[in-house]
């Protein structure tokens, strides 16, 4: 019996079997996504960089109710508010610290006027030590830039909510 085992191992059968497997994999399809050129599709619920939206007439949506500030589990949002000339309550300061933010999306869920949203932007960086805090102007600018995509994503997702 032992002799047969030795003779079998001398034919290198098992080694050749292993090489057949790797040889087959050589020609198999590769599933790697070549990232910057190819991208995986993103969900409409993707939670990326924040933005503040406006109404169609250009009026900012945020009414400084501070629900997002209250709900934020990471205390990343800071809001100051004041009465504007026309008597409405508006924010004077709306800051998000991106280092603290955990991208949970609670701010968006809590917002009664759909003002603060998380866009699908996930490729961003800072070029300075103190650039991690986004102020109101920057957030509004991001919102103006991505309004179409944001509105579209909310519309597509609405029927599943």
């Amino acid at each position, binding site marked *: 019996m032992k002799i047969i085992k030795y003779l079998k191992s*001398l034919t290198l059968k098992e080694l050749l079997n292993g090489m057949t497997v*790797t040889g087959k994999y050589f020609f198999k399809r590769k599933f*790697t996504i*070549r990232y910057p050129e190819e991208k995986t599709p993103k969900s409409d619920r993707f939670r990326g960089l924040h933005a503040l939206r406006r109404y169609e007439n250009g009026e900012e949506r945020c009414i400084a109710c501070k629900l997002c500030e209250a709900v934020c589990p990471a205390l990343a949002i800071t809001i100051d508010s004041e009465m504007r000339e026309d008597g409405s309550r508006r924010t004077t300061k709306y800051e998000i610290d991106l280092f603290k933010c955990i991208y949970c999306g609670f701010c968006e869920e809590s917002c009664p006027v759909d003002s603060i949203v998380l866009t699908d932007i996930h490729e961003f960086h800072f070029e300075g030590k103190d650039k991690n805090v986004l102020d109101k102007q920057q957030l509004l600018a991001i919102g103006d830039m991505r309004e179409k995509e944001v509105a579209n994503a909310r519309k597509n997702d609405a029927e599943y909510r």
Partner: protein
Amino acid sequence: MIWDQIWMIIWTLLKIVAIVLPLIIVVAYLTYAERRVIGFMQGRMGPNRVGLFGFKLWGLAQPFADTVKLLLKEIIFPANANKFLFLMAPVITLATAFAAWAVVPFSDGLVLADINAGLVYILAMTSLGVYGVIIAGWASNSKYALLGALRSAAQIVSYEISMGFALVGVLIAAGSLNLTTIVHGQAGGIGHWFFIPLLPLFVIYFISGVAETNRAPFDVAEGESEIVAGFHVEYSGAAFALFFLGEYANMIMISSLAAIMFLGGWYSPFSGDSWIAQPSILWFFMKTGFFLLLYLWFRATFPRYRYDQIMRLGWKVFIPICIVWIMVVAVMKVYHVGPWF
């Protein structure tokens, strides 16, 4: 008279450059091919990014980027290391790896030094390569490097024996130590090549060659998982690049020797008078390339041998089989069996 000699030296130097430069480029692309082939076998893409002038070219510029990176890096000397030996070790490895190429016939008459004991010269050169490894391990003043060097030395010395015995079979079959003569003995199509009567020796030769060059699955000398990188753990920058170059040059060496001694060197596998049956340097390159692919294929397939398994395989399996088959070859030679003898 004196001018003839000077011209002779210059001509020889030119021939050396003509061998070494393409060899270095092939080594560079062998590293690329290795990463690419192993990547494909593991369901990955492998390096496909680095290109030239904005064109990606499937990552074909990768070896040059690697070379530039290695050459620009700092060479770090470990504390209390023997600086002279530390720098000499990679030079020894590389010099012996390149020197062996002097006697390799690429095609009929296309050889730098057509000496009559070419095979012995090659065995001597590849054996000397182990000094580079041992000295590197010792001069590094590091326990990992020393362990790696000891493992490597024991392994190379063991497999040298079975490799030498496998070559004895070739010597009996060809009746010569000269590599060109050995190839001439295999003229006349695939049926005349030595790998058929010497099949066990052929397999043993190539497996021993893999062990000799410290390649997977016999790479305990490097053994990333237990001794980090073995003998070259303390090397960086250009010194590390030399080790790399030497290792891959040795791989190509073993592959080309297998092609020369067992697969009929530059002869075509077909017989007859058509264009495809003509002997050509391209056949030699194709055969060498086949063995290089086997090297990469082995690395993608087999897990590393345990140290005692390596020793058992070398001493208790390969050497007995070699001795038995040498006797078989001798008998075949005496009775002029087949088209080979």
